[in-house]
Structures are given as C-alpha cells and as structure tokens.
C-alpha cells in the first residue's frame, strides 16, 4: 500500500468512529462511550493527516494546538448548562471560520482546485461565522434578543446573495481580477450572515442555532470537496444532516415552516391580538393550599419551562418531586421540544439537577398521561401549555403542538406575574375552572412548597 492509500484508510476508520459514535447516542446508557469513540475517530484523523505529509511547520502546529486546546478546555469546564446555547453558537461560528480560513489558505497558496468551490467554501464558512456571532450576541444579551427588522430587509439580503452569485459567474469571463472577486465574496458573506440572523429573535432562537449548526457542517463538506478529502466530506455531511433534522424538529415544535422562521420575524410582532383580552376568572391560591392539593394527589406531572431554569429552580423542583415520590406518589416530567433555548436543553438542565432521565417524557409520550393525572404543576412554562393552540384559529400559536395539561384534574400554575409569554399571547388556561395560580418567584415558591409538604 502506498502512503495515500494508508492515509485514506485511516480517514475511513475515523469516519467509522464518528458514525458508530453518533449511533451510540441513541440511548443515554451508551451515549458517553459513543462520544469517546467519536473523539478517538478525531484522533485517528489527525494522526492520518500528520503522517501524510513531510513539509509541516511543527513548532507552528504545536502552537496552534496548544492555544486551541487551552481555550477549548477552559470553555468546556467553565460553561454553565444554562449557557449551552451560547457555547454551541460560538462553536458553530468557529467551525465555519475554520472552514473559511482553510479555503482561504488554499486560495492564497495557489491551489489548483476549482475556483468556484473555493469561493463557495469561503462563502458558506464566512456566513456561518458572522451569523453565529450575531446569534451568540443575542443569546448573551449583547444585542437585543428581539427580532431586528426594517423595510426592504429581505430585498437587501437577496441583493447581497445575488451579487455574490453574479461575481462567481463573472469569473468565467475574466472581467475582474480573481483577488477582487474572492475578497468581495468574503465581505458579502460576512454581511449575509448578519443579515440573515438579525431578523430572527425570541422564541425562534433554537431554530437559528440548529440551522447554523447545519451550516457549519456544510462548510466543512465544501472544504472537503476543495481538498478532495473524504474525512471532511463525511463528517461535514453528518453534522449538516444533524443540524437540519434538529431544525426541522424545532420548527415542528412551534408549528412553523423554516421559510416562515427565516422571513417571518414573528419575535417582533407586538401581538395586537393580546390586547383584545377576554375576561378571565383567575383563582390565586397560596403555597399552603397548593401543598394540600399535592398532598392529596397520586399522580403528578411537572411541566418545566425556561423560566424555571432562569430562576435556577430546577434543583429545588427536583427536591419537591423527591418528597412527593417518598410519599408514594408517581411523578413525571413533561418536556416540550421547545422548552429550553436549544433542542434538548431542558433535559440537560434537569439532568444537572439529578432528575433521572427515565422520568423525562417528551410530548407524544406524556400527552395521553394527563387524562388520569391528578395535578399538572406548571413551572415557568406558558405558550407550550396554552389550549388556544388546539382550537383558537385567531391565535398566533394556533396549530402548535402543546402539552395537554388542561386534561389533568387540577392544574397548578406558578408564575411571577400575569405577563404573557414569548409569543405575546395571554394564556386562556389560567382562567379554566380546574386551574389555580400560585404567584411568585419559582425558587421561593418551590422552597415554601417543600417546607409545607414536609410539615403536612
């Protein structure tokens, strides 16, 4: 076997590591070993590369790997679970940047690869980079989390994209120098990434993160085509597919199409519907009364929303659940697909609070359970439990799959105030006959509840 064959064989082994690694993510029991296997695959890919050439600048490689490793370890250790969406946004951006930089390096070194592929690779990588950093800024609160829209926005984005494509076509006629076209396309891609991300905000952020995740994979694939490298093509495709599938799941969770998320800018609509509020008869209960209802219940379903995580109350929620379980009651958790700020976010936040994963039930699993459930305890969730989504065609959330908490015998809702949720819609559930409200900060309320339950 010659050197090229050995290298390609090692790349194949690396790809198998990634594929089997992701396959093992199909169950929490095997997931950790899967992640380890994927990291071994990456090691094999790196070794394959370093044994394939002879002209490496070793000190510089050591420097790059050293700096990157230190930063990577710091981020991995220090990041809080609530900040996971921000971290993924940054990593998406770095992935895009790495691909764009590799393509630029190939261009600068006078690679004989297709000029079009080089430009496409830089275009995708760069727009992933700028888009991801806008998404990060929004999640972190550096820029307004709301959708930023103005008239002609879509026309401008279309113009930027059109110009980039026109420049690629112009290249065939040798009207402009290669350099000019290459750098202009890079600049246009930077603007396009920003332009595509700023009009998306609020509840749509999980979709954007998933979509940018997919882009970072596609950028790696494009770079794979550029270098003729199988490892990049296969890994990039896996990530691209993963991001697209998650994007699709998030869109379904909100009953939106992807086109609607990208061009619809719902996060900004200052809901005119919400102002026409129906009269609602709200029953406000004290924590003691809530504790008494829970004490009499046998089956309880907890519905956590992002508000719970913001208040860092998932730990005390688990203590309440433990206390109820110790009294022989059945406690389950209902997790809506868009409960957190990114796919699966709420599950990680609850796992961090030591909630066993077999108690976390997704939408399809838990909805039939509400009918014979004594108490649904809603903690910081709002739009995902609004029954209007089932029947009120005038509601902006109509058609969105929701958790059918109203089917439970009693619904206890903890909220800080009567402010509407992300979609700006007032929740008719609060006025239902079987609903009671317990106002207050989630953490304080749960601490009180815990005390009352132990005293009863």
């Amino acid at each position, binding site marked *: 076997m010659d050197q090229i064959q050995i290298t390609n064989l090692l790349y194949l082994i690396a790809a198998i590591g990634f594929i089997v690694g992701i396959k093992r993510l199909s169950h*929490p029991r095997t997931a950790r070993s899967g992640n380890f296997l994927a990291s071994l695959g990456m090691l094999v890919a790196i070794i394959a590369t370093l044994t394939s050439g002879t002209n490496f600048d070793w000190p510089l490689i050591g420097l790059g790997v050293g700096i990157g490793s230190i930063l*990577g370890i710091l981020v991995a250790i220090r990041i809080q679970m609530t900040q996971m969406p921000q971290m993924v946004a940054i990593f998406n951006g770095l*992935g895009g940047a790495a691909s764009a930089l590799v393509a630029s390096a190939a261009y600068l070194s006078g690679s004989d690869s297709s000029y079009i592929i080089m430009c496409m690779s830089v275009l995708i990588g760069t727009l992933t980079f700028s888009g991801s950093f806008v998404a990060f800024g929004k999640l972190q609160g550096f820029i307004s989390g709301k959708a930023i829209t103005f008239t002609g926005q879509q026309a401008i984005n279309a113009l930027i994209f059109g110009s980039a494509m026109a420049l690629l076509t112009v290249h065939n006629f040798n009207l402009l120098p290669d350099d000019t076209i290459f750098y202009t396309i890079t600049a246009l891609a930077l603007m396009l990434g920003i332009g595509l991300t700023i009009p998306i905000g609020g509840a749509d952020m999980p979709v954007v993160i998933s979509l940018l995740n997919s882009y970072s994979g596609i950028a790696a694939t494009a770079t794979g085509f550029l270098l003729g490298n199988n490892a990049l093509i296969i890994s990039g495709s896996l990530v691209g597919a993963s991001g697209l599938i998650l994007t699709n799941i998030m869109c379904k969770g909100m009953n939106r199409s992807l086109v609607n998320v990208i061009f619809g800018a719902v996060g900004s609509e200052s809901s005119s519907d919400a102002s026409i509020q129906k009269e609602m008869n709200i029953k406000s209960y004290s924590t003691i009364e809530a504790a008494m209802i829970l004490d009499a219940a046998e089956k309880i379903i907890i519905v956590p929303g992002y508000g719970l995580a913001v208040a860092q109350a998932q730990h005390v929620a688990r203590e309440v659940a433990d206390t109820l379980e110790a009294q022989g009651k059945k406690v389950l958790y209902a997790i809506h697909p868009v409960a957190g700020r990114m796919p699966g976010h709420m599950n990680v936040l609850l796992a961090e609070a030591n909630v066993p994963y077999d108690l976390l039930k997704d939408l399809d699993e838990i909805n039939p359970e509400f009918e014979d459930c004594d108490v649904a305890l809603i903690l910081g969730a709002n739009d995902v439990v609004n029954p209007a989504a089932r029947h009120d065609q005038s509601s902006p959330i109509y058609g969105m799959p929701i958790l059918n908490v109203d089917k439970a015998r009693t619904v206890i809702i903890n909220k800080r105030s009567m402010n509407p949720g992300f979609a700006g819609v007032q929740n008719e559930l609060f006025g239902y006959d079987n609903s009671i409200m317990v106002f207050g900060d989630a953490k304080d309320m749960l601490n009180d509840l815990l005390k009352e339950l132990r005293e009863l």
Partner: protein
Amino acid sequence: MEINIINLITIFILAVFVGNEIINKVPPTLHTPLMSGSNAISGIAIVGALLAITADGELSTYFGLAALICATINVVGGFLVTDRMLKMFKKK
C-alpha cells in the same frame, strides 16, 4: 493528487443518507449533547488546517494557523463538554 469529483459526490450523498438514518434515532433527551458533539465533529476542519501549515512560511500558513486554533477549540471543547453533559444523565 487527482481529485475525482464524482467519487466525492458519491461519498457525500451516501454520508447524508447515513447521517439521516442514525441521527433520527437520537432521542430528544440527548439533542443538546448531539449538537455539542457534532460541534466537535465539525472541528474536522482541523485536517485541512494542518495541511495548510507548511514550512514555506507563506501567508497561507498563518491562515492555516488561525484555522487550526478555531478547529482545535471546537474539537477539544466540543468533546469535553459533551462528556461533561452525558456524565450527568442517570437512571432512576
């Protein structure tokens, strides 16, 4: 090295199908680790970055270095944080 574009497209299409199959089997509870893990895998650009860092000392080498730093953060940070999360998932 001669690049056969049809072979590359073949590999690409097959990889997309494989990806689609295996990722659809990942349960919602593991979607966040899936994303951070795929962040790490998209750090595969590290391969391209290493190939760009040649001893010629040209400008392209420094682009390669910047790419190497970005990709290494992705690989190291991505796999570590995924492991940190998966460690927390416990059965009752």
